[in-house]
């Protein structure tokens, strides 16, 4: 059978789900969740089918194409709705649909009591469709559609509890910041059009070599801007923290596992362009490095469990971006870390969700403590995720992150050293804040007390529909890394797309591993000293300057507020004034002056016949003189 015709189904199924659920009306309220989950599972199944089929082929004919129809045919401008399924896309398809399905499943339990859950699942399906479109598109414009599609879905889902102003604001913020990134993407596409006359992957990437470096750099930087927006990289990271306003499954799926990694996909996909533009690459690595520290530091200071995890997400994606910036050395590891991260971060979030589920949606870790005996499954799965992310030897994170650090050193030169050490430092901090989260949540004394209404939370384990996905993800986060790395399976799998090459690392792999182990131990022990030894105060201490700054996302939001929001408000207000007084005023002024003139001339009509006669006489005189003058000149 001809497999590429299945590709469209990958997108179609969840899209159908979204359409049905959103337009379906109340009668679907009961079956809605299950229907949504089913339609989320369909792409996963199809994905598996295609995957096995793909494995059966040789490395070179593994890339499948499906051309649906010509989308925007205009003189000298061809945009098609066409799909491309190669190893890279396939990786994403499996990750997205797989994790997606699990999280749908989880949500059935989590959203049980929400009367608008039908719509929730509709949005989730919409997201899946958009995300799959993003990774399956065979040209940048279609990718852009998916790109904004996931943005929309995330907007809808962050703001799902719209009655909370904070949620609505967060959603708006997320969309706007992403829009800034999208600007970058659209400019990049325009550049491609003017440079290559097309924006389909194959011709563009094919022609990239014989194009001026300047153009490539410009395109690269614009793509980076896009990636920053979507993947919450500095300077466009501010939205991710607030995005935690959304229901936890959303945070797990969209703001941890899949959507936020789209930036990485974009860069890796456009690898050829970046290879031709070292400056752009450098910029990418810098962004990655900065973000991985930034996120980590923020993660250390947050008491809100989800925000802490969000910080960690930022920093982990920082790793991926960094890796992607390293070029052919790093692409593979970027993707690999992306996948493993997909598993353990999703797991962690679901764990957090399950904790909140048991604690009346309390998010402040200082109100937790000693939960391990109340919710064992959650504890175990969360714990495994924890070990995975800090890179405990043998677990997924260990393999993927380690490789990235190596690659960073392998970049060579001072850059290599700087990037490598930053990555190491990041690892240490990661270990620190994740341990902090772990301890504050599951160890120590219980710190929760009745709330205003006097109903104390009584923690309990979550229902099966929630725990099963957590378990599966835990499994993934334990073994995925190892499975990929043995015999460089993953590397060979992606080889045709990313053309891996081994840089010459100044340090041997062993050294790097050793170093990571060391920093890991340091980080963990520091956290243990600070939070494990002595009891955690249930109200946050004032903390050092850095801490306070970090709590406020290193003042980045304040900056935005002062410069952009306030400034913008002033600008618009003054413009409104200008429009009313100046632009309109000129016209009204003219009208008024004509009126005034009229009023004055009118006075001449004073009703006295003799003055009329005077004007006639004068007129006659003027007439005569004028005529004579005409003759004279």
């Amino acid at each position, binding site marked *: 059978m001809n497999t590429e015709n299945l590709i469209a189904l990958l997108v179609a199924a969840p899209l159908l789900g979204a359409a049905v659920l*959103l337009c379906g009306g109340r009668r679907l309220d009961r079956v809605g969740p299950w229907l949504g989950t089913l339609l989320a599972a369909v792409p996963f199944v199809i994905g598996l089918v295609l995957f096995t089929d793909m494995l059966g082929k040789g490395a070179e004919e593994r890339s499948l194409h499906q051309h649906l*129809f*010509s*989308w*925007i*045919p*205009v*003189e*000298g*401008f061809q945009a098609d*709705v066409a799909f491309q399924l190669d190893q890279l896309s396939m990786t994403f398809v499996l990750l997205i649909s797989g994790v997606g399905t699990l999280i749908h499943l989880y949500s059935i339990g989590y959203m049980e009591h929400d009367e608008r859950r039908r719509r929730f699942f509709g949005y989730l399906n919409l997201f899946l469709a958009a995300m799959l479109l993003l990774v399956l598109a065979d040209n940048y*414009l279609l990718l*852009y*559609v998916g*790109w*904004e*599609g996931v943005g*929309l879905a995330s*907007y809808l889902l962050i*703001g799902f509890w*719209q*009655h909370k*102003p904070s*949620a*609505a*604001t967060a*959603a*708006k913020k997320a*969309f*706007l910041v992403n*829009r*800034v990134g*999208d*600007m970058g993407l*659209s*400019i990049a*596409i*325009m*550049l491609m*059009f*003017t*440079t*290559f*006359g*097309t924006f389909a992957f194959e011709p563009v990437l094919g*022609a990239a070599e*014989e*194009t*001026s470096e300047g*153009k490539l750099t410009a395109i690269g930087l614009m793509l980076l801007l896009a990636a920053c927006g979507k993947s919450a990289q500095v300077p466009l990271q501010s939205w991710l923290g607030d995005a935690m306003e959304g229901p936890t499954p959303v945070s797990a799926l969209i703001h941890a596992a899949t959507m936020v990694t789209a930036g990485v996909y974009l860069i890796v996909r456009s690898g050829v362009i970046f290879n031709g533009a070292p400056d752009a690459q450098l910029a990418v690595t810098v962004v990655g490095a900065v973000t991985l520290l930034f996120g980590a530091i923020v993660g250390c200071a947050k008491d809100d469990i989800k925000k802490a995890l969000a910080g960690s997400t930022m920093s982990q994606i920082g790793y991926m971006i960094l890796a992607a910036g390293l070029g052919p050395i790093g692409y593979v590891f970027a993707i690999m870390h992306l996948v493993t991260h997909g598993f353990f971060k999703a797991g962690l979030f679901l764990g957090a969700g399950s904790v909140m589920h048991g604690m009346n949606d309390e998010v402040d870790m200082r109100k937790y403590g000693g939960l391990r005996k109340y919710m064992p499954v959650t504890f175990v799965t969360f714990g495994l995720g924890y070990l995975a992310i800090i890179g405990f030897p043998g677990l997924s994170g260990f393999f993927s992150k380690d490789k990235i650090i190596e690659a960073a050193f392998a970049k060579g030169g001072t850059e290599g050293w700087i990037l490598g050490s930053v990555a190491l430092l990041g690892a240490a901090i990661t270990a620190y804040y994740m341990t902090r989260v772990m301890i504050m949540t599951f160890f120590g004394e219980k710190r929760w007390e009745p709330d205003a209404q006097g109903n104390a939370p009584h923690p309990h384990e979550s229902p099966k529909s929630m725990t099963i996905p957590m378990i599966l993800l835990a499994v993934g986060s334990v073994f995925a890394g190892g499975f990929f790395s043995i015999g460089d399976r993953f590397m060979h799998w992606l080889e045709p797309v990313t053309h891996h090459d081994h840089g010459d690392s100044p340090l041997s792999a062993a050294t790097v591993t050793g170093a990571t182990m060391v920093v890991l131990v340091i980080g963990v022990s520091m956290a243990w000293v600070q939070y494990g030894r002595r009891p955690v105060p249930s109200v946050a201490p004032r903390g050092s300057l850095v801490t306070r700054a970090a709590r406020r996302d290193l003042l980045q939001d304040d900056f935005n507020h002062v410069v952009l929001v306030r400034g*913008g408000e002033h*600008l*618009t*207000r003054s*413009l*409104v004034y200008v*429009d009313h007084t100046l*632009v*309109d005023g000129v*016209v009204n002024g003219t009208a008024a002056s004509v009126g005034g003139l009229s009023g004055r001339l009118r006075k001449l009509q004073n009703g006295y016949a003799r003055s009329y006669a005077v004007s006639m006489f004068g007129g006659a005189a003027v007439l005569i003189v004028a005529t004579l003058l005409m003759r004279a000149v």
Partner: protein
Amino acid sequence: MSFPLLTATAALPAVGAIATAAVPAARRAAAKWLALFFSLATLVLAVVVLVRFDPDGDRYQLTESRAWIADFGVRYELGVDGIGVALIALTALLIPFIILAGWHDADPLETKSSRWRPTQGFFALILAVEAMVIISFEATDVFLFYIFFEAMLIPMYFLIGGFGDRAHAGSDEKASAQRSYAAVKFLLYNLVGGLIMLAAVIGLYVVAGNFSLQEIAEARANGSLDMATNTERLLFLGFFFAFAVKAPLWPLHTWLPNAMGEATAPVAVLITAVVDKVGTFAMLRFCLQLFPEASKWATPVILVLALISIIYGALLAVGQRDIKRLVAYASISHFGFIILGIFAMTSQGQSGATLYMVNHGLSTAALMLVAGFLISRRGSRLIADYGGVQKVAPVLAGTFLVGGLATLSLPGLAPFVSEFLVLVGVFARYPAVGIIATLGIVLAALYTLVLYQRTMTGPVKPEVSAMPDLRVRELAVVAPLIALLIGLGVYPKPLTELVNPAVKHTMSDVQKKDPQPEVEAAK
């Protein structure tokens, strides 16, 4: 000679207008149904035109030509190219929705003297406008076009001034005062524009000796008619000024917010989605075709003005407190895009601009009509008076959101296609301009989402707590529009194929070639 299809298409609504106006005062409902019937019949004819039109055929098709006023060198010449067909279709399509949406807008509050028949008048005027708009899309004789371009103002003027928002904050006296101010402003702005154009029209006659678009264009092409550079520029400016007022270009835009703010939502849609399109259409058809050199000469300035419109309009939209004024300023921003696309002088830009005219019509209609439904429920145009509507009227909120997303041209919805084409087209020739214009994307998101957030989300305001969701009639208005927005967003091919040949012609009129991509240029 064959059946005069174009004349029929334009005449039918005119007949409808007369018939509707003639309905006796008491039979209000009859008038409404009559009007709706005629608008639908017109739609049918428009579809016939669409079918009969062959995109790859001659430039102007279904042409008609009769003697009219020989002394003025005026002939009754009709003909449509792809652009005209598209816009006629848009007009014929929107009018039924406008009528349906305005179903109750003109019901007299209390029965005045039996001879006063606002309802009949309202719908008759709408049909009259439709007739005039359609014929100005068809006219290939400059004078004929001018006549209806001007005459259109009168019914519009009565629609704006005579039928303001029933539900308006403040006293009735104040309301009617503001309303007639808006109406007069609308009329005077456009009248001045039109009169200046009249001077240019006369000038054109003095130079060319007749008004036939094709003849003049041919004469210009084969050099048998060459204008002195300055003459051509002056004439161009005369024409362009009128069109720039109509399709509000900064700084001639200030009439639009007043007009759209004071008029009822359907009329506001009529203004911005239908009538203003005549302005941009005319730029494409008359300015470029009659005065190619002058158009090129003026391009830099026009591009700058268009850019200002885009950014300025968007920023002001952000600053508005009144829902309808917000949409108005958004439209100003969008018209900036259209004009940008027209004067980018690239195939993508001009195709994009044409698509933009259609898509903007649809998206604004969707957003504005839903806004109208919202306003009619609460009785206020102020954003601050709303909040949490989404909870009590989810369908209304949902449609409103879709309309908003269309306005910020979200990919997958029709406006994205056109906006991106415009941007690419501009970028290809003037990269800097293109980049600045993309800022518009962000600002659009800002004002749309702020509007949605303030009105629809957050805790439910007590005043809106009892608000009913969309009724069947209202859903019947919005649903098809949304369907179209999605349909044309996913599959715009039919539209582009309709427009492309026409754009080719305009490109050859101005003797411009699309810039070559670097790579091919290198080869």
